[in-house]
């Protein structure tokens, strides 16, 4: 399953990178509506005669792009605040931790929906920025919790104390001795978080408040195909399959990486 996850993700990344270049335009009508699967349109065309494969490929670029950007932002904020939450002076440490706790008062992506709701726009480029901003604001608190808990377990370990006893500054011992230990767990959790962000992005697009048309997104493709599913159910199947398998693969990858970084967790939860 771990290897299935890696191979599927590799295919998705490859298709996202070169797919849109080698097929038809994902934005324009290139054939008759609802053309069947064939050599010209690999997965057929949608209700407007647009190439479904090209749209899935471009949608992969959008989903992965948004997912990676949001996760990168969340990691930068989360690692900084999480470390300050352990090593910072009290007047910085306590507000950070309280504020992080308070952010959990919002369930799941409700805050993202509020932010999008207030800044909603039909401008295509801005809609992507709005999705990235709202999901990043929703994503960072869980990273802070993870990093803080992990950094706290290393704070009083011998090798960290030793480096400080040898005269290393706090900044040096944190960046050189503590944070490198977090690499494995952060990578593993990031995969699962990435799955959550891609899921949230697709959900927003499904609801019509995420990435705006005609930019293809897996979520909006599902919502579109839903309208014609009585007559053309196959068009619904493709985006559903690609999205589910991507989420699936990222979760397996995350579980696999976690098992590698922490042998004790195997077989549990």
């Amino acid at each position, binding site marked *: 399953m771990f290897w299935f996850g890696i191979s599927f993700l590799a295919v998705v990344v490859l298709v996202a990178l070169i797919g849109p270049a080698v097929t038809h335009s994902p934005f324009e009508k290139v054939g008759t509506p609802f053309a069947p699967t064939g050599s010209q349109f690999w997965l057929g065309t949608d209700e407007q005669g647009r190439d479904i494969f090209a749209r899935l490929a471009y949608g992969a670029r959008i989903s992965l792009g948004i997912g990676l950007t949001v996760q990168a932002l969340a990691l930068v904020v989360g690692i900084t605040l999480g470390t300050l939450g352990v090593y910072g002076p009290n007047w910085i440490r306590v507000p950070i931790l309280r504020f992080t706790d308070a952010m959990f008062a*919002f369930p799941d992506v409700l805050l993202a929906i509020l932010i999008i709701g207030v800044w909603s726009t039909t401008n295509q480029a801005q809609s992507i920025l709005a999705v990235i901003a709202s999901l990043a604001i929703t994503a960072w608190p869980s990273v802070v919790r993870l990093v803080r808990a992990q950094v706290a377990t290393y704070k009083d370990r011998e090798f960290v104390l030793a480096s400080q006893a040898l005269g290393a500054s706090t900044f040096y011992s944190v960046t050189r001795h503590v944070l490198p230990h977090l690499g494995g767990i952060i990578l593993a959790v990031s995969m699962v978080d990435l799955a959550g962000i891609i899921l949230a992005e*697709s*959900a927003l697009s499904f*609801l019509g408040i995420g990435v705006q048309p005609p930019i293809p997104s897996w979520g909006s493709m599902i919502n579109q195909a839903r309208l014609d599913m009585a007559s053309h159910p196959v068009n619904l199947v493709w985006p559903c399959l690609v999205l589910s398998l991507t989420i699936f693969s990222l*979760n397996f990858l995350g579980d696999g990486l976690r098992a590698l970084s922490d042998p004790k967790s195997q077989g549990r939860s």
Partner: protein
Amino acid sequence: MSILGNIPDALRLFRAISIRLAYGVLSLIFVSFVTFLASELAPGDVVDLIAGEKATVETKARIRHDMGLDRPWYTRYGEFLVGATQLDFGKSYVGTKEPVKDSIMRTLPMTMRVAFWAMLLAASIGITLGTLAAIWENRWIDKWVLGLSTLGVTIPNFVLAPILVLIFALQLDRLPTTWEENRVASDFYYLVLPVVILSLRPMATLTRLARASMIDTLHQEFIRLAQAKGVPPVRLYLRHGLRNSILPVVTAIGTSFGFLLTGSFIVETAFALPGIGRLAIESIQKRDIPTIQATTLVAGVLFILVNLLVDIFQPILDPRIRESQV
């Protein structure tokens, strides 16, 4: 040891609950403030939206004054808060300018109804499956439960909704596709798909957690002792096992409720259910800020209240937590 058996115990419990209540109130204030802030930071001028393009400067000034927008933010936050406690969020910016309270009151019952049944379904099936899987750890039932719960966590509900409609409504023709004003069958047929789809993700989470927690419990010494004493299996698993393993699951019910709330946005959109999630999405598309604020705040408050309730029940359920919360 009974809950009110001796005075210090009851005091301790009271203290723990008061602290938790205070945190709950702080959370409510935070959520309401962020919700208020969102409209303050919204781009564009509300007055332009309401007065229209051709309004004169005097008309705009009058509207601004009538809406209280010329007063400082803390006065308006105070009023927002006081209004919110009475579910008064002013009037909608668009359409019939209906008071937001009315549209909330109209849509909230549907959301609560679906959420309640979904949570009940998720908790009962999740705990049962998780416990069974833990009892037969690593046997076929365990592997099936784990596999299915992985599917439940990973398959998004907006993927499941159209696919299940395709199968049960369009192919088998057993269920209606969406909610309708004039229903030909009992509500059960209209709500069964939404409830099941909404419950799957929390169900999967609770199953995994119930399994992990039960496995931890069953590996402890007192279980082996009970087995050696010849406690019959049903009593062993229910009284000795489940009672000790249920607490993390109860906590998770609170967190899962959050996924249920945001999930209801999707399910209500997919099945055209007149609930608060669909109201929220429609008001976002119409840029109707008072309704967006109200729906967010109501969902946020429900989430906080459910978690508060769960946390207050915990020390009552478990003496170990009562002891530790001094």
